[in-house]
């Protein structure tokens, strides 16, 4: 019953009113915003983090930060876009932090014999499985997830925002705190890396299409 009431209220109160009520001291009004925008933020977080556990942490942290910074929001764009950006920013930090943690654990195995730096493109290509292994859609999803994990946090943010959420370059640049040209280049680099990583699958699909199997 409580849930029903809250859902009705969530559906009726516009974001701007909920923000105003929260700023006026009504903490419960923030619930409306959380319930309304959680799923959208979760989709972004999942694509960036690659797992549910980290995605949920990103969502919670984004809404906590949103609450703390709500005064700064002050009618900018709309709340959904605003909290989405906060989530994207936090996700970058979280992924960087996770990479540092992982590299500390894996450092001995990742060093080359010559001590040379690792070319990320070559690394993606080397670890790419054969086209046969990519036959199933689950494997494909896994492969895309792996390919995304190989991108830098900025590249991952850029491609997720651009491709899945259709964000403009200016919006991506704002999250990455870079120029629009730099943001554009980040999107290009991300696509290049993904193309290399997914090439076996892409070729397989092209062949299948050419043979009339798809």
């Amino acid at each position, binding site marked *: 019953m409580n849930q029903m009431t809250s859902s009705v209220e969530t559906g009726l109160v516009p974001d701007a009113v909920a923000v105003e009520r929260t700023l006026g001291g009504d903490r419960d009004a923030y619930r409306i915003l959380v319930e309304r925008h959680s799923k959208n933020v979760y989709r972004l977080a999942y694509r960036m983090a690659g797992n549910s556990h980290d995605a949920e942490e990103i969502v919670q942290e984004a809404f906590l930060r949103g*609450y703390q910074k709500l005064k700064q929001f002050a009618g900018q764009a709309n709340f959904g876009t605003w909290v989405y950006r906060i989530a994207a920013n936090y996700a970058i930090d979280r992924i960087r932090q996770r990479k540092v943690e992982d590299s500390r654990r894996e450092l001995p195995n990742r060093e080359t014999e010559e001590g040379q730096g690792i070319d990320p493109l070559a690394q993606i290509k080397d670890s790419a499985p054969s086209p046969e292994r990519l036959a199933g859609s689950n494997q494909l999803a896994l492969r895309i997830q792996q390919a995304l994990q190989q991108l830098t946090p900025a590249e991952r943010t850029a491609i997720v925002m651009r491709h899945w959420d259709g964000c403009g370059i200016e919006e991506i640049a704002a999250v990455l705190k870079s120029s629009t040209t730099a943001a554009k280049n980040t999107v290009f680099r991300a696509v290049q890396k993904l*193309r290399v990583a997914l090439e076996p699958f892409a070729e397989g699909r092209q062949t299948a299409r050419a043979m009339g199997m798809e």
Partner: protein
Amino acid sequence: MEHPKEEELIAFHDGDRSGREKLSAHLESCAECRAALEKIEAVFAAMDAMPVPDPGENYGQRVWAAISPRLPEKHASWWESFFAPRRLVAVGAFATIAIAAFLAGRYWHHPPSVPNGTEVVDTAKVRERILVVAVGDHLSKSEMFLVELSNAEPNSASGKLVNISAQQHRAEDLLEENRLYRQTALKEGDQVMASTLDELERVLLDVANSPEQVTPARFESIRQRMESRGILFKVRVIQQGLRDRAKPAKPQPAPKAQQQNISKTNHQEGNRA
């Protein structure tokens, strides 16, 4: 045209308009570049195949449950509270009455010739009348609210939750007005009025701050707290006093019947408590 760079093909796929026609023409005649563009398109198509697990229908509620204990209370600064919409409505209503009464006092009641000092007395009377009308209206709405709350009969035997969201909204609306009038009464030095409005405010806060759904027992305790304060009776007495003050200058002795009525009400209140 030279073969475009991969960046240009990605921008083309992305819908970039710069040099689009030229590139389009090149793609028509260059199989190598068409194949390169298809590879890029295949990457995006593959990405679309990546599913995002559905976190569930109640995901938003779960997020709220996880973060709400960590959210600090927000204290609105005085000016934010003042400009909150609900307060603005109350301020607006008050201002409308004030302006109307001011104009009424200025144009209707302006005596053609008045001895010095009378005008000051008239202005004070008009001002008092404003308060009387405005507070009277507020008290009448509050009385109705209290009567309804007092007469509500939740089915306590069923143990089902009582939805008091409608009463809460009304209590919230009345609260804003009440605060304004209480502050005004304090400034005017009307201690009895200020004290009654203060008690009324506690009852309104009690209702406004309760959950939307309460158990019959909790509802009963709200009602008992309201009745133990005898607030309904006090509101009625104050209202009566205001009606008397609002009457034209002709002083009239308080009718016995009215006093009896008040006593009767008091008696009823006492019985109920």
